[in-house]
């Protein structure tokens, strides 16, 4: 499948969502694309992963063609407000107002809209052109990712007029546009990740008219064990293998794409490259 300019990667915690996002970003950059890998929040996971100095909102170059940025909603909001308010003094007054600060911190849906607003700013033509071939977002895990996508839908329903309504509708248009945005749900062959992943896929389809792709990660290759083998370790692996098969079967005909399990590796780049090779082999990426 051809990868699009904006890619969201989500999945239940612990399935390797960040690994898949990073593997896609690194692999694409090595194919000559300009890629921005994005994480949400105040704290960078990739900072430790790639052993980088402090990573912030301003993109940080990891390797040729690959940059990393940590999007916190305050910075996104500042950029957005800056687009409307050109006077520095008014801008500062707004953000230094204590009540505004408290309000921003807790106001319903504001965080989500700020982040989605930033992710979709280029096609909506608000804010500067970011100049990347791909923006790959290591998004929240399933529940919060759904809340993130839901924010503009909820807002555009409650607020019809004014910038809030207009922007929300525009955000919806971008995240629904399959020629611009792709959504990946990462899972691994265990009960909860599979059930939650399939559930999210069908919710995105019915509630948001978004078609998400499943990526199954951490598939372990088990050795052949005869049915009569009775050593506890053999019984354990045999049963684990049966379970894995069962969950992979649940994904059948749903075009789940797979990546094999990689054991803990200290060489991060080699680790990501091997995941990327799996993604290419299984058809997630057309190089």
């Amino acid at each position, binding site marked *: 499948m051809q990868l699009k300019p904006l890619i969201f990667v989500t999945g239940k915690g612990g399935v390797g969502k960040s690994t898949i996002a990073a593997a896609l970003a690194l692999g694409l950059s090595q194919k000559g694309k300009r890629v921005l890998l994005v994480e949400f929040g105040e704290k960078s996971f990739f900072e430790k992963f790639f052993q980088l100095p402090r990573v912030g909102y301003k993109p940080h170059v990891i390797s040729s063609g690959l940059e990393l940025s940590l999007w916190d909603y305050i910075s996104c909001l500042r950029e957005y407000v800056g687009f409307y*308010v050109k006077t520095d003094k008014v801008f500062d007054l707004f953000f230094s107002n204590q009540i505004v600060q408290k309000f921003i911190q807790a106001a319903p849906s504001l965080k989500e809209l700020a982040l989605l607003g930033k992710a979709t700013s280029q096609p909506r033509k608000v804010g500067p052109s970011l100049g990347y071939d791909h923006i790959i977002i290591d998004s929240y895990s399933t529940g919060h990712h759904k809340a993130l996508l839901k924010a503009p839908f909820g807002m555009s329903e409650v607020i019809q007029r004014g910038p809030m309504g207009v922007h929300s509708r525009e955000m919806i248009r971008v995240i629904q546009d399959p020629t611009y945005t792709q959504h990946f749900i990462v899972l691994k062959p265990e009960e909860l990740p599979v059930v939650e992943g399939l559930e999210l896929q069908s919710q995105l389809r019915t509630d948001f008219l978004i078609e998400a792709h499943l990526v199954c990660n951490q598939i372990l290759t088990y050795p052949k064990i005869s049915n009569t083998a009775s050593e506890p370790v053999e019984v354990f692996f045999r049963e684990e293998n049966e379970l894995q098969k069962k969950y992979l079967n649940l994904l059948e005909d749903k075009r789940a794409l797979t990546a094999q399990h990689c054991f803990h590796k200290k060489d991060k780049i080699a680790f990501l490259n091997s995941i990327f090779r799996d993604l290419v082999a299984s058809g997630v990426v057309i190089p």
Partner: protein
Amino acid sequence: MRDLIQKHKIFVCAGSGGVGKTTVSSSIALLAASMGKKVLLFTIDPSRRLATCLGLDSWNGEIVSVKNFESGGVLYASMVDHKKIFDEFVKENSPSKQDSERMLKNRLYKELSTNLSGSQEFTSLRSLQKAVDSKQYDFIVLDTPPAQHTLDFVKAPQVLFNLFSGPVVEWFRKLTQKKSGILSILSKGTQAAVAVLEKITGAEFITELQDFFVSVSNWSPSIQNMVIQAQKILMGQDTAFLIITNLDEARIIEAQDNIKDFKRLGFSVKSIVVNRMTPDFELMSVHNQQVIDLYQNLKQSEAEQVSEVIKQSTPGIQFYKLPKILFNEEELAGLVELSQAFKSIEVKQ
């Protein structure tokens, strides 16, 4: 683990989603009950099978008695029904029926109340507080809601407190008056801030918000009071935070960071539980070389990760590992077996 249970009355099980937090919380509660305690377990959104096992599958909102032990201990379980608790809170704390109905009908409240930052944390804390106040239990285990960040759970009270504290509500009340022409009530800074807010969000949004906050002002004292009480419980000496994780790099880094952050905020993290470790097996009479290789690969990979975790961890934190046990989660027996399988890991001090 027994020792840790003896020294406390409340365990808060934190950790990011997908690590088996609910299963671990349940097995800790079972262990405490097996030690002769009257234990209440609050789970949040358990899997269907786990819910069946705890007798919560057709849950009617009441606390369920799960198992009696010979030691005299009992395990009770309950879930946290967010919408119900939130609505209940609104009803209990509104001055009149009209007020509560107005709030429950507010479009922002309806659209966003279950989504509001901190609302799930709020309802969990309220459940905890009610259980503590009832003085019915020797030991309470609280499973925390899935969060972007584990810390959201302890930060939520402060965030809500800020939102419902006097100044923000007061601000919106003044905005209402501004509509009726009394502009001078607002300071210059506030006027500028309002102008910007209107510009970027639109007048309709502001009107909805005003309605929401003016309704909220009715029950802001009760919400503040509740938040203060909850904070006291969480920071108390009887409360221990446990971080549940599995051997996934992202989770481990998060767990490390969480310990520091919890400490900074004044909460005490006593232990890290590493869940779903490959169990120990004897290889003496195994002849299948591929099986041996896979087992050793898994073990070595896990050992490397555990030693990295311990190397970076703060002194005084107790590590436990819990093996991956294959059991039918619908049957309590499996969970009881798991509850006896906590193993302490050697930690360099």
